[in-house]
């Protein structure tokens, strides 16, 4: 498949409405991740494009199987076999990287990652102290004594009470929230420029979720690091993120600031997600999006959301997704305002009923 020509004129930094004009810390352009399997080539991420400025948070949201976790991992070269980055660039602080291997060299220094389940993300046979100290010794070259002292500092900094005592504890002796704090401590030990977070609060109870998100915000304010947060929880996105990228079937179908997405979502999928969110003061029950996400090994040409889209039209299978996903909304039939889109949608259904 030949590559679509880049629209070089549209730079990433002016893409996002809240951009301050300075270069973003992280800029992803045309990222493609593929897995080779018995069922054929699975296109986990196609033509992904977004950027994150200094000190901001980008949320990547979507259903299971949309490719958000794979995209996040691609950013630090952690895509597991049999997958790999086949195209695209990831720019970190102005330096461009093209392969997973190159990005891997940034791990633990410029890029850091925290994971969903703190219970399985910490080594169960090593003490907390040993694990935190290890990062300091290996990545920063500290001596054992210095690393130990710094580890205690770090643990205190992320809000763990009595950090000196906790150094000798094992992961299974701590609560979920504590474990996640330890993870975060290890992730920020080397003062990364970008923190990648894969559903960091999904495995925690609601109160703890709040605390962890607040912690992340505080750390972000202190260091100015950018955060890329992957989640399926729209509530977290709303509360925590500055910008959002919505993914579906490996494509970024919409990008924008959080205010825009909440007040006037454009892409039918985004609108579907918003409508599916339970609201306390809603006038009606949330509407579930009917159907299942497509199988990424057998993606049909055109827009992958077509089978489930309430505004689907005849032309949808002919949509040039490569070109569309460079823009902020991948649906060409959605007008400048949401109402127009709704009207268009109604119109097309009427057409169908009339048998045209």
């Amino acid at each position, binding site marked *: 498949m030949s590559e679509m020509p880049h629209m070089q004129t549209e730079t990433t930094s002016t893409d996002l409405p809240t951009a301050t004009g300075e270069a973003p810390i992280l800029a992803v352009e045309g990222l493609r991740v593929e*897995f080779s*399997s018995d069922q054929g080539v*699975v296109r*986990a991420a196609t033509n992904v494009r977004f950027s994150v400025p200094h000190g901001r948070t980008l949320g990547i949201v979507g259903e*299971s*199987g*949309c*490719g*958000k*976790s*794979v995209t996040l*991992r691609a950013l630090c070269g*952690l*895509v*597991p076999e049999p*997958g790999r980055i086949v195209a695209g660039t990831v720019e970190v602080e102005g330096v461009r990287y093209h392969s997973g291997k190159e990005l891997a060299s940034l791990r633990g220094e410029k890029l850091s990652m925290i*994971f*969903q*389940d703190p219970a*399985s*993300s910490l080594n169960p046979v090593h003490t907390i102290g040993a694990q935190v100290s290890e990062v300091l010794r290996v990545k920063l070259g500290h001596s054992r004594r210095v690393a130990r002292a710094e580890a205690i500092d770090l643990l205190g900094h992320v809000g763990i009470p009595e950090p000196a005592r906790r150094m000798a504890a094992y992961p299974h002796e701590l609560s979920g929230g504590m474990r996640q704090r330890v993870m975060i401590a290890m992730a920020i030990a080397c003062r990364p420029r970008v923190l990648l977070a*894969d559903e960091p609060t999904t495995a925690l109870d609601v109160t703890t979720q709040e605390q962890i998100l607040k912690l992340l915000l505080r750390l972000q304010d202190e260091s100015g690091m950018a955060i890329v947060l992957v989640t399926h929880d729209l509530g977290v996105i709303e509360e925590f993120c500055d910008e959002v990228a919505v993914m579906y079937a490996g494509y970024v179908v919409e990008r924008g600031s959080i205010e825009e997405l909440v007040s006037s979502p454009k892409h039918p999928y985004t609108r579907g997600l918003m409508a599916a969110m339970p609201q306390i003061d809603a006038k009606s029950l949330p509407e579930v999006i009917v159907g299942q996400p497509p*199988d*990424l*090994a057998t993606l049909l040409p055109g827009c992958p959301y077509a089978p489930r889209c309430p505004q689907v039209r005849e032309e949808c299978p002919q949509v040039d997704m490569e070109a569309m996903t460079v823009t902020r909304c991948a649906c060409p039939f959605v007008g400048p305002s949401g109402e127009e889109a709704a009207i268009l949608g109604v119109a097309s259904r009427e057409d169908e009923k009339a048998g045209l």
Partner: protein
Amino acid sequence: MSTAVALQDVGLPGATVDGGQSRRGLGVALWAGIAIIAVAVLATVFVRITGVGNPDQLSLVKALEAPSLSHPFGTDALGRDVFVRTVYATGLDLQVGLVTTIVPLVIGMVLGLVSGFFGGWVDAVVMRVMDALLAFPFIVLIIAFVTIFGVGLTGVYVGLTIASLPVFARLTRGEMLVLREQQFMMASRTLGYSNRRIIFKHALPHLIRPNLIYSPSNMLGNVLTLAALSYLGLGAQPPTPEWGAIIAGGQDYLLTSWWISTLPGIFVVIVGIGFSLTGEGLAELLRARTG
């Protein structure tokens, strides 16, 4: 399991330990194993029926001859053809292996079935005895029986049979405990206790599965133990041809007539690989059925 998470994200199954061997691969292992054993069995049967080659034919003139076309494994100190003896020995070893697997399988299954079904003190007693048997190193246990019955095959037969019991009993009991929760609860409610026999007939195919999977391993282990005991002089007594005994016979001549002790061993290894492949292939096959 984060790598699994990432893979699930794109709809791929996670890594499996044996790499999810493709269907073609698994068939090959099983058939190769069975083929090897079949050849060995056929060889020993053929040799006995047709009387080609005499394992006991002494000939001091032809003693300690190097391997040649007429004597592929050479001759031993008494001039006997080592290859013919090895093939004959196959019959004895396989026979012992078979008997000391089938008998404990049957008895062990009964014990495990009873133990698992009734539970309570029956279960406790049976399992304690099995544990006690398992506490002994295998060869030491067999040697104990050889002590009781005197050197020779009787002690080996009894010893191997008894020593093989615990595993079959344990496997069956484990399967029974699982089964008890499933079929019996339903059946006993609808049919009443009188149909216990029918229940046993339904349970049996499930109970026999782990035992079948384990059988080739058990046979292999027992045959190797017999060989070791015969090597030590405690098992098959001369002039009976047995793999271990043949190899032992060549030890004094190891430097000069190396073929007596070394070549039969290669034969044993090949047959052993046959058992190993059969065991693995069987395990894959039977596990694949239930998924």
